[in-house]
């Protein structure tokens, strides 16, 4: 070849080699095998799809689409309030208006055999943590409740466990919600113990009747042996009666007073570490949490896609327009 340009000489050699390989029916020397190329293409597609879903999940998570809300952990503090760190989605029941002081909330009689607990997390303005804690104490006292335990972090965030009479529960929640700039999370749970209560009452009645019968028999007993035997039976029945009465008292206390866990955080306070503590862990609850976690992640991805797909479509349109304009300019 009549050229001094080495590159063209090398290119000629390369083309010659390609020609010879083709003439010999051999595959390209360093060409990527079809299957590997296909695998690479799929790997790229999978990578892009994974990244897309990851971004969607992140967007969905921050948009609150997962329903996963971690409450503040009082790490290193003196508080002793355990419980589930993973909050359940708050039931969006209509909030009853706070009753005037001293007046019971309407319809509260229906809740006498239901144990109601709640969690609420609020964000307050910077520097307002101390004042908010004072207000929280006043809310507890105004609703004839009290603060059972508390823990704080650097006087900028903290967790407080309140015991509030059940008939003031919704009113207290509404007042606490009003303390914050915004509500980070809210959860209310209700446990119906009516059946358990009725069962205990029935057993108590039977035991009391038995006690009365044993007492009557004891009075009619003639021999020492009969007196001792009936006395033992009476002691045992009395013990069972006291045990059931204790359980009924405990249930009544639980029904009468609700536990409200309040997490207060200043706006720019560092986010406390999220924890997911399972009370009395067992395989069943672990599996349940795993399923819930999966569904929440799925939910976050779906919500995130709702945001991401229109943005991606808009981006594609803009990109398409830019390409068209550049081509138009190139042609011009």
């Amino acid at each position: 070849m009549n050229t001094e340009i080495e590159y063209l000489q090398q290119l000629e050699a390369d083309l010659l080699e390609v020609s010879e390989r083709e003439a010999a029916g051999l595959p390209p020397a360093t060409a990527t095998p079809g299957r590997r190329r296909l695998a690479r293409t799929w790997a790229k597609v999978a990578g892009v799809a994974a990244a897309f879903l990851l971004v969607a999940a992140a967007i969905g998570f921050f948009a609150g689409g997962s329903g996963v809300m971690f409450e503040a952990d009082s790490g290193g503090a003196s508080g002793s309030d355990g419980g589930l760190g993973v909050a359940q989605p708050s039931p969006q029941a209509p909030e009853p208006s706070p009753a005037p002081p001293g007046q019971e909330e309407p319809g509260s009689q229906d809740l006498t055999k239901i144990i109601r607990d709640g969690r609420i997390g609020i964000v307050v303005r910077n520097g307002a943590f101390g004042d908010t804690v004072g207000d929280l104490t006043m809310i507890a006292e105004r609703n004839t409740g009290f603060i059972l335990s508390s823990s704080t972090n650097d006087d900028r965030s903290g967790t407080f466990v309140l015991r509030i009479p059940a008939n003031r529960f919704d009113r207290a929640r509404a007042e606490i919600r009003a303390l914050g700039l915004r509500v980070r999370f809210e959860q209310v749970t209700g446990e119906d113990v009516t059946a358990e209560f009725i069962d205990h009452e029935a057993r108590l009645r039977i035991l009391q009747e038995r006690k009365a019968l044993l007492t009557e028999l004891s009075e009619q007993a003639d021999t020492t042996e009969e007196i001792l035997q009936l006395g033992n039976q009476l002691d045992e029945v009395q013990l069972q009666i006291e045990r059931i009465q204790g359980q009924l008292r405990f249930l009544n206390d639980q029904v009468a007073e609700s536990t409200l866990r309040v997490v207060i955080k200043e706006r720019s306070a560092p986010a406390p570490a999220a924890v997911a503590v399972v009370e009395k862990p067992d395989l069943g609850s672990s599996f349940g949490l795993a399923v819930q976690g999966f569904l929440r992640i799925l939910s976050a991805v779906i919500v995130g896609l709702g945001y991401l797909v229109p943005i991606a479509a808009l981006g594609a349109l803009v990109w398409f327009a830019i390409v068209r304009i550049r081509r138009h300019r190139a042609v011009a």
Partner: protein
Amino acid sequence: MEDQRSDSELLTVSATEPGAFTVLYRRHAEDLLRYFARRTLDPEAAAELTAETFAQAFASRTTYRDTGVNGVAWLYGVARHQLGRFFRSGRVDRAVRRRLGMPERELPPADYERIEDLVDFAPIRDAIEDALETLGAEQRDALRFRVIEELPYPEVARRLACSEQNARQRVSRGLRRLALVLQEQGLQPAMESDG
């Protein structure tokens, strides 16, 4: 002994006799390189465009149909397509060379000057001087020394206080940028018809 077959015949025969394609290559490689060099002003881009054009032509040669038009026109049709893609995307495609298993080759240092010699800068020297003002300082100085003052690369490298290889790269990239600027101003160093 030189092959007497026409370009069209070579292209047609190369479908069953791949070796015939290299004859076509020997005939037109340098002209095609000049064609690209005059349009891109960039030795690296011109060399790569030449390689990709011949690779594309080789891969597509079975689609060539002799309709009475010289085969070289078909080759330059492929070249124009590659050039258009280069100006749109700012880079040379390597897809066909990769598919054929052709190695990626760097432009040998000595080839920079040889390819620049293929470009006749004289008619556009004034336009280049104006266009230089639109470039960054490094590329502008490199081009001024090399294209305007026509200094050899060792001297360009000495004045830029860099290696010869680095000087070549600066000139190459500056020329590529310059070609785009000139194209935007309608001052392409060579038009389609003079390929």
